């Protein structure tokens, strides 16, 4: 019988985290950047669940609920900023927003 251990979950979660991190840093479209942030937060939840199962301790699941809460708030505010940027620039490209460049 094949057993799935915590290590399997950790490797999967790390893969998702790396993909998300690459998306956040490399993509120019702000919508894709926000979606990559969601990927990262989701991979963290996977970690918490895996350890919650291994230690048979519910705290990991409780923490994951709060992570989902923060992800929801972050998506709402991020998309609000996206709409504001689109009104200002007629574009969602992040490298068009250069007001803070000296």
């Amino acid at each position, binding site marked *: 019988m*094949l*057993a*799935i251990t915590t*290590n*399997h*979950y*950790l*490797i*999967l979660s*790390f*893969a*998702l985290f*790396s*993909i*998300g*991190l*690459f998306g956040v840093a*490399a*993509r*120019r*479209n702000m*919508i*894709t950047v926000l*979606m*990559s942030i*969601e990927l990262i937060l*989701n991979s963290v*939840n*996977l970690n918490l*669940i*895996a350890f919650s*199962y291994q*230690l*048979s*301790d*519910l*705290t990991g*699941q*409780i923490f994951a*609920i*709060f992570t*989902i*809460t923060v*992800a*929801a*708030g972050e*998506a*709402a*505010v991020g*998309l*609000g*900023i*996206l*709409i*504001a940027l689109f*009104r200002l620039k007629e*574009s*969602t490209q*992040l*490298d068009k927003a250069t007001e803070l460049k000296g």
Partner: protein
Amino acid sequence: MDALVTNGPAILFYVFAALAVVSALGVVTMRNPMYGAIALLTSFLSVAVLFLLRNAEFLAIVQIFVYGGGIMVLFLFVIMLINLHRLPELKKFGAHTPLVALLVVLMIGVFGWFFLQAQFGPGLAQPDVFDHVDGAKLGNPQAVAWSLYTRHLLPFEIASVFLLIAMVGAVVLGRRQ
């Protein structure tokens, strides 16, 4: 057939883990954000199945409701609202993409090395557990609710205030001048 049943959880894990990784790659590489959003939905649903395989039934449902329902609708709504078809994206990736790729590979190397050094398997020392789950007596949603409304009541209330602030902030940011 017998092997399929005994190895069922492992097969499910590998299928949905592969699906999650492939669709995550789709999110990062798709040119059209609409396709990216659908790939993101696939990734969320696969991760929900992986939650189920670790006995986190309540979180699997929350994952489908909040990510698959709420956040996904928000993304699709905004993508349709700003009508990206008028805006051809010339280049998907920024100018510094090779550097970013190098840093991510470096991070994978460093963390992978620490991962190989550390013992996360059954050898991990059992800490002093609280909120112990007795799966036989209490279902997972009941156990989570019990913990959330007793031990973690203050963070729970703070989360509701946080959501209110986020909602007001989103409305203020999205308002016309």
